[in-house]
């Protein structure tokens, strides 16, 4: 199945013995000239090279970030090498490469900071012994090593939870990636995708006509299935709610079953809603590449569409990092949102909407429809560690679980140090969900796979529910490597979809049977 070893899972987590350079070969494809230029990043004369004057540019950008973001300066200065983060990263646990200990990965750029921006680094650097004060020369080799290891961090921030100083590795990774893109080494996967969002409306490159055709097909599918016409409106001006959801929800399984769930909830709640062809994407890969302008431009197109369609509310579908951007930054990136109805959260998460409907008792639920499954829940890193889903502290943990428990009879959590704010990344987040990083993704999934296997063994869990398009795609791909099946990952709103009973549901289906009986 693979030409590398799949890590073993255990009953209890095992901290691996280190293997120097175990993942030094892992490096995603570099963006070509076309993608670099579409993003406004410079291109080198030859693909794979750095631009002329790269070293000066690197240091100039690092200096700019140190001045602009106080956090970056604090993160560079405060690490005392205590080691609390070393065994907290899923990529270290899965690969045993010591450079995947968050402290070591951060040090790749910290040692450049020390060499060029601190007095001891400057002095010992000139004397030829920069390593004496934890500094290092900025060489092309160092840049390539950064490219490799800053694409072995999914910006999930689990390490930051355990850091006594709160050093946020994700921000260090983002800063490094932005600098690399600006000296000619953008990553192909993310930089190929972002221009599509602006040109076509979504990461997939799904044009309006194809989206309309897909949605029409879903309406037919639901009607065939339950005999109720549930609408999937597109670009409907004057609708109350704009749903912004990851484009994977239109395209892939199990994502699409979640989308059907949202539509059924809206139908049952009797609200008017619409999707937008131009904002047919919740994801914001500007976050992954650490580029503020890019993140802002992606967010602005949601504002443009909200205005064009004249909606009163914005609701986000099941997408991890999209919710992180929306929850934390939507207002500063694309606000003020004073033209929306201020009686509702701006923006709102679909789970908050559904939970509210459940709490008010306006959804007719038959939990037994999910009795063939026993569920567990994977907290998505970006939602767990960077947001809430509701007003209260910890609602990002309680809201999804409350919804699952309201529609399923059988639910068990995975072990306590792998959920809530200690959750593990799925292994494919932060712009790493690409085939050229498959080895990293499989190995990085280890801690989650281990916890899942244990809850399967202990509690008879059959399926894991998730609320992020990346998590769903990543697990679909990696579950078979660990002896499980791809259909064991489900969308939370897929569970809602199965349990919800709409008015008129099943009535038509019964008629032909009666006719047969009487005949």
């Amino acid at each position, binding site marked *: 199945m693979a030409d590398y070893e799949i890590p073993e899972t255990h009953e209890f987590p095992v901290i691996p013995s280190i293997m120097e350079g175990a993942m030094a070969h892992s490096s995603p*494809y570099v963006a070509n000239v076309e993608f670099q230029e579409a993003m406004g990043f410079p291109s080198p004369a030859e693909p794979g090279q750095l631009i002329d004057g790269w070293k000066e540019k690197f240091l100039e950008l690092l200096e700019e970030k140190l001045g602009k973001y106080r956090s970056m300066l604090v993160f560079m200065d405060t690490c005392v090498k205590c080691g609390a983060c070393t065994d907290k990263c899923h990529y270290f646990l899965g690969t045993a490469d010591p450079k995947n200990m968050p402290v070591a990965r951060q040090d790749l750029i910290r040692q450049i900071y020390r060499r060029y921006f601190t007095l001891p680094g400057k002095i010992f650097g000139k004397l030829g012994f920069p390593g004496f004060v934890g500094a290092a020369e900025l060489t092309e080799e160092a840049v390539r090593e950064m490219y490799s290891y800053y694409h072995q961090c999914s910006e999930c921030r689990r390490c930051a939870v355990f850091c006594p100083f709160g050093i946020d590795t994700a921000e260090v990774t983002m800063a490094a990636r932005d600098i690399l893109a600006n000296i000619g080494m953008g990553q*192909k*996967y993310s930089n*190929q*995708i972002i221009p*599509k969002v602006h040109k076509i409306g*979504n*990461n*997939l*490159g*799904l*044009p309006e*006509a*194809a989206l309309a*055709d*897909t949605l029409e*097909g*879903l309406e037919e*599918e639901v009607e065939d299935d339950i005999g109720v016409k549930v609408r999937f409106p597109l670009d409907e001006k004057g609708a109350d709610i704009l749903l912004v959801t*990851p*484009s*994977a929800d*239109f*395209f*892939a*399984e199990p994502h*699409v079953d979640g989308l059907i769930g949202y539509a059924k909830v809206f139908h049952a709640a009797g609200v008017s809603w619409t999707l937008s062809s131009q904002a047919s*994407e919740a*994801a914001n890969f500007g976050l992954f590449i650490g580029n503020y302008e890019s993140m802002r431009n992606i967010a602005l197109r949601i504002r443009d569409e909200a205005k064009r369609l004249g909606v009163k509310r914005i609701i986000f579908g099941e*997408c991890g990092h999209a919710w992180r951007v929306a929850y934390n930054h939507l207002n500063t990136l694309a606000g003020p949102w004073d033209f929306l109805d201020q009686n509702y959260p701006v923006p709102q998460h679909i789970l908050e909407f559904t939970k509210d409907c459940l709490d008010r008792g306006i959804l007719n639920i038959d939990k037994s429809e999910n009795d063939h499954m026993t569920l567990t829940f994977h907290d998505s890193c970006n939602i767990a560690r960077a947001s809430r889903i509701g007003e209260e502290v910890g609602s990002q943990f309680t809201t999804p679980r409350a919804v699952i428990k309201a529609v399923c009879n059988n639910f068990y959590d995975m072990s306590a140090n792998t959920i809530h704010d200690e959750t593990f990344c799925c292994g494919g987040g932060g712009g790493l*969900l690409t*085939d*050229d990083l498959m080895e990293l993704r499989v190995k990085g999934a280890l801690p989650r796979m281990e916890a899942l296997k244990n809850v399967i063994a202990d509690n008879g869990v059959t399926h894991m529910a998730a609320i992020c*398009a*990346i998590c769903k*795609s990543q697990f679909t*791909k990696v579950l078979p490597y660990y002896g499980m099946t*791809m259909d064991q990952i489900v969308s939370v709103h897929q569970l809602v979809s199965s349990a919800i009973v709409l008015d008129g549901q099943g009535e038509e289906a019964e008629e032909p049977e009666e006719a047969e009986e009487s005949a």
Partner: protein
Amino acid sequence: MAIEANGKTYETDEEGYLSNLNDWEPEVATAMAAAEDCELTQEHWDIINFLREYYEEYQIAPAVRVLTKAVGKRLGKEKGNSKYLYELFPYGPGKQACKYAGLPKPTGCV
């Protein structure tokens, strides 16, 4: 990168997807499949042909439910599901079948 088929050389990207959609010929699909130890049967061709037709109309590969529905209609209900498609294309119909059909790789969170 490139792939040889029909005595000609076809340019591909790093991941083996055809650089120019219009270059595609059936022999390209056969050569790509052979390189992955896959022998194309009529069942594979049914999918590949549908992908090309859909792409021509919509400039994108079909979403999984669009594909399974079309397969179900054309080849019988028992085949209109992703299990059948994964049996034919174990690396995923979205990616493996698109590659053989000369379509660009679907990008994003899929």
